């Protein structure tokens, strides 16, 4: 149950500390940011609708923002709304200290656009289009897309959480992509670009 009280209880805080990869300051900061999202709404709401979450500056321009909300949401109505605990789960998965298993699990689910538990050609195409931009001139041409998909060993990638883990293991340094660093400063996300162009 997400709390909308202005203070988090001490044992709740330590519980969250044990169950996520966030530090105490980060949890308090997350609470503050979450409360700001709720501030204009009815205080009795326990989850923030997806549009409000997407208004966060860190998520606003992220091409995967909708997928992220859907993956972390535990709402029965599947509308992508996040409770405070979902929000903490999100931050924990993206933090520096999260393990490879956690990251690869959530990465798999975020990239699985059609939620069928497999990463197939259609998912890959949508993924590449997200990566390169929505407008026509930034997309790859159909031939290039075909060349890419045929070379991505896509047949081996279906259902392959372990394979994804192996790939991500190989790029362990680049795993810092899939993270934000809640470094206890006044901004929740800091740019953490410690690898960028470690591109093959």
């Amino acid at each position, binding site marked *: 149950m997400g709390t909308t009280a202005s203070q988090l209880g001490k044992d709740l805080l330590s519980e969250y500390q044990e169950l996520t990869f966030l530090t105490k300051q980060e949890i308090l900061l997350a609470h503050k940011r979450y409360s700001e999202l709720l501030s204009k709404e009815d205080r009795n709401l326990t989850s923030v609708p997806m549009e409000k979450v997407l208004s966060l500056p860190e998520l606003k321009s992220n091409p995967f923002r909708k997928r992220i909300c859907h993956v972390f949401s535990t709402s029965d109505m599947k509308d992508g709304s996040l409770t405070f605990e979902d929000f903490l789960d999100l931050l924990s998965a993206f933090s520096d200290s999260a*393990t490879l298993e956690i990251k690869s699990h959530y990465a798999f689910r975020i990239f699985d656009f059609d939620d069928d538990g497999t990463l197939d050609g259609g998912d890959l195409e949508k993924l590449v289009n997200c990566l390169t931009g929505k407008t026509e001139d930034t997309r*790859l041409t159909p031939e290039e897309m075909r060349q890419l998909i045929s070379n991505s060993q896509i047949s081996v990638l279906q259902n392959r959480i372990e394979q994804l883990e192996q790939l991500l293991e190989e790029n362990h340094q680049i795993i810092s*992509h899939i993270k934000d660093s809640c470094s206890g400063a006044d901004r929740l996300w800091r740019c953490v670009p410690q690898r960028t162009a470690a591109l093959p």
Partner: protein
Amino acid sequence: MEFSELQRPSSTIAHSYHGAQQLVRLRSKSVVSNQNGPQFNWGSPPSEGGEEGDSGPPKDLRERPMTMRLKRAIREVQQMRVPVVTSWQSWKRSKAKSLSRFRADAGGVMSYVALWRKALHKIGGHFGGGVQSYFIFLRFLVVLNFLSFLLIAGFILIPSIVFRSTSTSNMTVDSTGPEVCKVYDPNLQGLVVFYQYFLDLLSGTGFMEYSYMFYGYYNNTVAESSGFHYNLPLAYLLTSVFYFAFCLICIIARMGSALRVAVATGSGAAGSYSKMVFTGWDYGCQGDRATKLKQKSIHYQLQVDLEEERLQKKALSLTLGQTVGLCSLRIFLMLISLALIGGAFFGIFKATVFSQVQVGAEGILGLFWVYLPSIVITTGNFVVPFMCDQIALFERYSPSTTIIVALFRSVFLRMISLGVLLFTLWSQITCFKDSPKCELCQYNNKEYPCWETRVGQEMYKLALFDFLITIAMLILVEFPRRLFVDHYSCVLTRWVGRQEFLVPPNVLGLVYGQTVVWTGALFCPLLPLINTLKFFILFYCKKVTLFSNCRPAVKTFRSTTSTIFFLVVLLFGWGLALVAMIYSLAQIHPSMSCGPFRSLTMMWSIVPNTFYTLSLTTQDFIFYMGSQAFSIPLFIFSCVVLCYVAALATVYGKSVDLLKAQLKLEGRDKQFLVKQIEELSREMGVPTRDQLDTFDTGAAN
């Protein structure tokens, strides 16, 4: 060790069969996130489950990709169940918990202390990892230079200051040799014009020459007072040697960590796009502009890689005649670029000789002659790479090869131009072709009464000029260019565009600066301090120009392999400086008029001299260590250790390959199984998606 490695696949198999069960449900119903994690075995004791089971239960829970609700429920169950552990184990667990908490807090504190952490984050967020790796390299050099300065200050500078101020208990041994060789009077001060101080500051002469800055000021004092014995010349020599060793160790340690990452990442073969696609996005990008830039750069990189693959395929299909033609064209162009580089070397040689001849000229013209070698080197370093880039357009290498070839050419040019400068200096000092001048003192004492100080001055001038040119370029070229491009728009400005921050030339500049410092450290002990300040200021200047004047590059620069490349080039520079130092220590006669080694025929001879003053047992011991009876068994032993480590590495490599292949096979197995389950469930009329939904949500609550 191998046993646990083999254990891992079995647990991943267990994991994957759990996952396989899961996947049927995943496929047949819509996403409900709290159901999509792997199954948790409610019956298992807290210490099992998960591969990292030896850390306490709290860490275990975090690593399970479940929703918070589930995790809290599990935690409650765990806490209600009282585990039967001994007091020793519970004490161990509580200690481990507090230790991990302490480590987390310490990590938080350390991250505040790290130099320029926020600035580096900001740079990386806006310009990418390639540019950030340049600034990280710069920070590494600042720290290295500062630590070297502390080393030198502790062993050379401070004792020197102390001995000078307490000039009671020192012994200065005068050199034996012709009197004319001992003449050295740097303080030719009379009434000097005010701007002479400024000129002296720039060229290291005048008031700066006879100061702690340069070699000539240090005496060969051997201080002895009540049991405290300090041999300054020996300290000077050993500190210089140790300084080189220290820098080497730092570079190798850093290269080791970068190599480990690169080996884990694997070779970036064209065609492996999965890596780029799945791990290419930077979730730390902020704002629309950064996002669009990142998208553009990924787009560009994908296109480049796809193009490279197409080119590779095309290259394989070339006929013999075409291949021969291409090869001969490339060889021809390579010869042209080598000729250009050779021309630059010749120019530097001539300029150095001419500049040495012109010593003593006054005023601005004198300053110009004095700085002539630096000017020629810098001009060469601008012009020749530019022309080589134009040549490279015709060579038609693939894009990554072009970059590597261009980099190696620039590195070659820079390092060897410095080497040519040093060679000319040395040939002047030791009268390479003109023996009569050097007969008396074994070095050219007329033009170089204290030749070490002269070499130190030369290195100081190079370092300073490099810095001034960088600042001048910033102020006179980059800022105006940005103003021009921003406020006028015509064809020219659109073609020129804003400055792009090119990483390789900047890094080579840093390596060049550092090599100059290494070469000059023996003769100018304060040079590491000057370099620390120089790089420190350079960081802020480059950061300012980056954010104000530069546009982010669309062509990104690989950061893992580039770090290794930077360090390899730095090692080249180190090697060059080492050669120079060894030559100075072992070949040239030290000046008889100045410096700590004035009474010796060779700088290195202080070590044998001191060695023979040690006690006889120590001497015998050291002789024994150098003798065959000790060194041959030691050599054999180290060969055995090397073979063992190499064999271990091969075995690990093989087992890693085996495990990778096994993973692939398992994947195919799972795919097959899932297909089977699909077919079977279709045949047997397994409940539909909605029925399963209600079943699951009912089970969870």
